[in-house]
């Protein structure tokens, strides 16, 4: 009974052709938190990309005359104990923090997607790869990260220079210790997708395995990968700041938001703003990314879409 007016409705309204991603976007737009999150994140990205071009103060310029200052016209966010301008440091640090988040996420979801697809598509690889995943899940991640960074920091710095070396190390260790959830979810999706008719049809016309995976399997497991990507950025930023907060991340002359927080905590009585700026920046970024992740999850879920 309820179906009859609905069909009428469809017949009456003219529907323009909409792609899948248009549908996703329309649903995503309904999630207010996700939209606000996207705006804030866009502002942050724009700020750290364009900011240093507009605000051309050198973040490493030492000014012994103006140490530990609060916000003023000359130094909008104040200065640190060596007289370095906080706004310039925040902008420079944001670039690295966001770059670490995005790069580590790319490593993590690529690994997760590849391992998940291989385990899901090739039954022979399934068991060994999933045992590997289980083993990685049982590793105590934070202690291991700390240890690896401490032990290999100097070697990599010598190899790639102080800045690139520590960046590569941190991005790499975060990436290879956070792919497991993605791999599990992707494997599950592949297992359901690969038994569907269109895959059988593709096999029956002689499509090569590599093409089946790239043209038929991968596009269908893209949704969980995208959600994992959004949440992965947030997790990577948090992990990096935690490492920097423990003094084992980026060095002071090449600070991220986490490092600025760590350096500021000893001056908490004198200039509490030194803790507040980077803390707020980290929290807002992570919150925005998590909201975007929530919105994406709702938008990509076909059961929720169109309601």
């Amino acid at each position, binding site marked *: 009974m309820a179906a009859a007016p609905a069909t009428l409705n469809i017949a009456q309204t003219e529907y323009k052709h909409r792609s899948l991603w248009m549908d996703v976007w329309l649903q995503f737009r309904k999630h207010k938190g996700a939209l606000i999150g996207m705006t804030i994140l866009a502002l942050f990205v724009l700020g750290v990309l364009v900011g240093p071009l507009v605000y051309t103060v050198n973040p490493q310029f030492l000014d012994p005359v103006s140490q530990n200052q609060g916000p003023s016209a000359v130094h909008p966010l104040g200065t640190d104990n060596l007289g370095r301008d906080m706004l310039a440091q925040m902008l420079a640090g944001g670039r690295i923090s966001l770059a670490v988040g995005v790069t580590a996420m790319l490593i993590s979801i690529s690994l997760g997607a590849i391992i998940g697809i291989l385990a899901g598509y090739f039954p022979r690889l399934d068991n060994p790869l999933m045992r590997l995943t289980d083993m990685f899940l*049982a590793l*105590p991640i934070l202690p291991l990260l700390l*240890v690896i960074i401490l032990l290999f920091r100097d070697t990599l710095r010598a190899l790639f220079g102080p800045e690139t070396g520590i960046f590569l190390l941190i991005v790499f260790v975060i990436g290879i210790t956070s792919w497991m959830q993605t791999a599990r979810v992707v494997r599950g999706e592949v297992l359901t997708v690969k038994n569907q008719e269109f895959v059988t049809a593709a096999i029956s016309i002689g499509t090569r395995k590599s093409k089946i995976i790239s043209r038929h399997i991968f596009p269908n497991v893209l949704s969980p990968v995208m959600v994992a990507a959004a949440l992965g950025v947030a997790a990577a930023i*948090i992990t990096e700041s935690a490492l920097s907060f*423990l003094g084992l991340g980026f060095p002071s002359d090449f600070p991220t938001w986490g490092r600025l927080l760590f350096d500021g905590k000893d001056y908490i*009585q004198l200039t509490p703003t030194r*803790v507040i700026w980077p803390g707020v920046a980290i*929290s807002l970024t992570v919150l925005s990314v998590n909201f975007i992740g929530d919105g994406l999850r709702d938008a990509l879920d076909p059961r929720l879409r169109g309601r």
Partner: protein
Amino acid sequence: MVRYIVRRLLVAIPTLLVISFVIFAILDLAPNDPTGNLPLTIPPEVREQIRQSLGLGQPFPIRYLKWIQQFLVNEPLNILEYVFNTEIGNSAERLRVRSWATRGPVIDLILERLPQTLWVLGLAYILGAAIAIPVGVISAYKQYSLFDQVGTFVSLVGYSVPTFFTGLLFIIIFSVHLNWFPSFYDTTHKVTDLASLWVQIKQMIMPVTVLTFFNAAQLSRFTRSAMLDNLNQDYVRTARSKGLVERVVVLVHVLRNSLIPVVTLLALGIPGIFGGAIITEQIFRVNGIGQLLIIAIQGADIPLVQSITFIFAVLIVMFNIVADVLYGVLDPRIRYD
């Protein structure tokens, strides 16, 4: 069920051996010299003797096997002896895993630090669950109400804002400005009377609150979605249609079913308490296990780092099994045999 537990424990053994090997190898193969921090005036042959005395003379596989033996056989025997107050075998001769920094047995160092960690972080975990479950239940029952909207937002904030920022914020507000609570945790403080008990409570309030907020945020999101999954089930309608009071429907029928995944998640989260300790203890200077690990890492005290990391791994594997077994006990639909 017993067969299932035994099987899981047997599977856990190779997993843990592989993990112990990974931990041992990462620390051992790293370019690092334990005598590197000693003065340069020490002649090379003495330096070599120091290396020998630290057990570094032998090849890698032998050192690994010795470490495994010390860790998995000798130390548990010592603990058994301590608990039952007897002597098993030749306990004085038994090799122990010793810290390079203090030369004391690693296990003693860890046991010394355990109570602080358990008190602060364990309390925060229990309080977090005690807050999260009611909040999650009300949020789900009144979905899209004001309470739900605020609760969901607050929990997403609590989940996104890292504890090292909330912790420092609390210190700025409550220690620096209001001067209500001390900014660090004094472990030497002994509780003897009501006044000293109050001092103890005061120094615990901030770390416990920060962690409780973080734990509750994660758990309430999970409880809410577990409740929502159950609220639309057929059995709920049946319960209502046979005339049960709403309170009974929600608090007995729905809640009990929703708590199954929540309890499992709680069990899975227990090893995470110790991981979280690393950061929280650093903020509030609680000298628990997390701080011990940081000191050990900074001082390149390899045996101590290996032991703590491996204990964390054992906890993760064990509580994974506990969670799965709990799931089977609580949910009669799950049959493992």
